């Protein structure tokens, strides 16, 4: 049955309506796949501003901005795409990046993702966390030899197997050369010549015109790799196209901004990943620690209050007034010095050190000849990352002075402590004749709660006998040590048998410049 004229007309009208709607919607929005982070909508050129907190300084800028509307941006994007012959930014992105970026990620989301990944690779989690990690790792490493079982990885047999393979590959290669009637390089297969004979072995050089040509020949090895990335020509082209697009778009944005300099300007104070170093601060009583600070702060003018202006031809208008914004301050602390001296650090961990000292003094009163000392076992690692995010405001006076107010903000902590191990030693002597009796010891380690400002001391369950005077029978002492007794002189015995006590972080120095110092901001002309 033929469709009626009315039906055809209806379809036509609907089609037109739909098409119009689609065009209207697409024209009203920024094209999909556009990455705002790759263009700068504001100028970066302005006056230098310095924020000083105690001994650290951050440098930022006070910049006069001219707003660019969404519509103006959209027109620029579309025109640039058309001029460069780009149909879809989204498609180009898909060729270049298979996985899209995640924004504002929480640790919970990462943990959830790990759980999802575990399920996706069909792994049933078990109690052994490391075994699970290795299993995931090896299920994602899909190029690896599938004949190698996960157990090989788990039980550390893999390395030896690989070494055997590498050694065998060399033997096979030598054998192959010999079968082909060729001689393998004499340098490692036969007894080598003395250096003087080596210098005279010019016959080997007949094929070489000069050493420089030979060096170039060696570096030609790179050409083997060319084919590997040529296979990625499409992706390379897409990446280059995207780079060209964003470069050209930036040029057009700058041009537009310069053409409308008097259009409702406003001022911004910005610290864009401004960094500062701080050295030699103390943590739990041990100096020599270092840190890097990174400040991101943006304060936008909300009200203009005066006619203050700069003697510069590229800015105009008033910067004086009130500003509001947000900041993120990241502190990356390298606590290597603290980790290198656990024997000192542990004495400053809360009441723990006080108890230890008290115990030592008491024991010394009983027998002053006895020795009590701590010694480090290895160079451990201690690292802390703190991120604080919050709001801030500023008031720029007409004189150019800046009054800054920073709210405390939300804090996130990440600690990485490992191998901060030490040994508690106790040497006993006969008080009557100073004869050495025995030396006992206990292993311990300073640890941190990963996401909290807390540390604790993790003691081994039992002490051990390091040395003893062979004249006497020490079985009773050994038995006591085996039961976790006898070594309680220098520490709180309760900690050895139960869950450790958690102690507050030493925050007296570590973040002092930001948390406890007066912050001053000024314009540096």
């Amino acid at each position, binding site marked *: 049955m033929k469709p009626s004229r009315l039906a055809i007309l209806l379809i036509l009208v609907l089609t037109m309506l739909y098409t119009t709607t689609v065009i209207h919607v697409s024209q009203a929005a920024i094209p999909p796949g556009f990455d705002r982070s790759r263009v700068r909508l504001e100028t970066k050129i302005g006056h230098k501003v310095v924020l000083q907190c105690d001994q650290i300084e951050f440098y930022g800028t006070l910049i006069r901005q001219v707003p660019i509307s969404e519509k103006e941006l959209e027109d620029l994007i579309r025109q640039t795409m058309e001029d460069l012959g780009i149909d879809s930014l989204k498609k180009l992105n898909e060729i270049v990046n*298979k*996985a*899209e*970026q*995640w924004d504002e990620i929480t640790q919970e*989301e*990462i943990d*959830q*993702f*790990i759980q*999802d*990944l575990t399920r*996706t690779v069909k792994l049933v989690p078990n109690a052994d*966390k*490391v075994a699970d*990690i290795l299993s995931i*790792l090896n*299920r*994602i*490493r*899909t*190029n690896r030899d599938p004949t190698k079982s996960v157990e090989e990885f788990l039980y*550390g047999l*893999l*390395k030896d197997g*690989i*070494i055997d393979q*590498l050694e065998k*590959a*060399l033997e096979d*290669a030598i054998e192959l*050369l010999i079968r082909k009637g*060729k001689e393998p*390089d*004499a*340098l*490692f297969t036969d007894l*080598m010549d*003395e*250096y003087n004979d*080596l*210098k*005279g*072995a010019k016959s*080997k*050089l007949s094929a*070489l015109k000069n*050493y*420089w040509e*030979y060096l170039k020949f*060696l*570096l030609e090895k*790179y*050409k083997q790799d060319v084919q590997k*990335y040529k*296979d990625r020509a499409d*992706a*390379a082209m897409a990446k*280059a196209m995207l780079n060209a697009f964003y470069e050209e778009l930036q040029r057009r944005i700058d041009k537009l901004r310069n053409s409308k300099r008097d259009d409702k300007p406003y001022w911004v104070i910005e610290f864009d990943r401004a960094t500062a170093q701080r050295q030699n601060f103390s943590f739990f009583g041990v100096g020599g620690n270092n840190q890097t600070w990174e400040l991101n702060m943006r304060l936008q003018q909300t009200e203009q209050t005066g006619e203050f202006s700069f003697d510069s031809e590229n800015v105009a208008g008033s910067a004086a007034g009130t500003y509001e914004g947000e900041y993120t301050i990241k502190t990356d602390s390298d606590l290597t010095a603290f980790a290198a001296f656990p024997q000192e650090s542990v004495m400053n961990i809360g009441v723990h050190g006080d108890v230890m000292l008290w115990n030592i003094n008491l024991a010394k009163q009983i027998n002053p000849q006895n020795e009590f000392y701590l010694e480090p076992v290895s160079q451990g690692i201690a690292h802390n990352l703190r991120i604080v995010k919050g709001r801030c405001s500023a008031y720029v006076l007409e004189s150019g002075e800046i009054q800054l107010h920073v709210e405390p903000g939300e804090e996130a902590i990440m600690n990485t402590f*490992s191998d901060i191990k030490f040994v508690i030693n106790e040497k006993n002597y006969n008080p009557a004749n100073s004869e050495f009796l025995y030396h006992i010891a206990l292993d311990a380690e300073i640890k941190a709660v990963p996401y909290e400002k807390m540390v604790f001391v993790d003691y081994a369950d039992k002490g051990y006998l390091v040395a003893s005077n062979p004249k006497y029978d020490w079985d009773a002492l050994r038995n006591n040590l085996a039961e976790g007794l006898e070594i309680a002189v220098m520490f709180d015995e309760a900690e050895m048998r139960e869950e450790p006590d958690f102690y507050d972080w030493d925050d007296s120095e570590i973040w002092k410049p930001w948390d406890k110092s007066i912050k001053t901001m000024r314009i540096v002309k």
Partner: protein
Amino acid sequence: MGEEYRNLGMQIQSKYAYGYAAASISSMRLCVDTLLHVGGEGATLEEVVGSRIADWDEIAAYNYASPFPWVFEGLSLHAQDKLEEAQECYYNAALNPEYDLENGGVIVYVLAMLDNDDLKELKHKLTGLEDQIYEAGIAEPSKCPRDKYCFSDEYLNALGQEELIASDGDFANAMVYFETALVVAPFNGDNYASCAIASLYSGDMDKTIFYVNEGLWADPDHEGLNLMAELLNERRP
């Protein structure tokens, strides 16, 4: 080559190529310095070397894929009549499949026949190349200690896994081995996969995504990385 990779936005491959050049050229330069010293130049080797890198392990760490640090260290020992140690170095070089088993020793003979004037001329050219390589600021030495099997990415991955077991699942030290494996073999998707998983467990999602994308750039059909990319897009908050 490193520059070509860099222009294509292939930063990991660029690091590989610059690192390979750094290890190869600097080791040859240190060998030339040693031969000059053996030939009577300078009161000490340090005096001949000057401010340039004088440590074989440090040079090799720029990229363990290059067999040349072992070759030139071997020749340096050879020139000092330390034949046993030299032979061990030559053997270590030969373990690396990139070493030319049939003709690899020729370069040793080439350098051995040069007199001090030739060696000085060669050093001049090599230091010029060294400057170009290091000025680019891309090559950097690995923190993974040198041994004769470090040219193998599989071996480095195995060391990384051992480190993971030893540290009870802490990726901080294992990451050094995984990243070195990536510099040694930047076209094998498995090495990106290790780094992506290590970054994930270290709580760095940006780096995870970076390694997945760079891995799929280098090895587009890699199953594990494609699976991760799919899941990342699916679960993106």
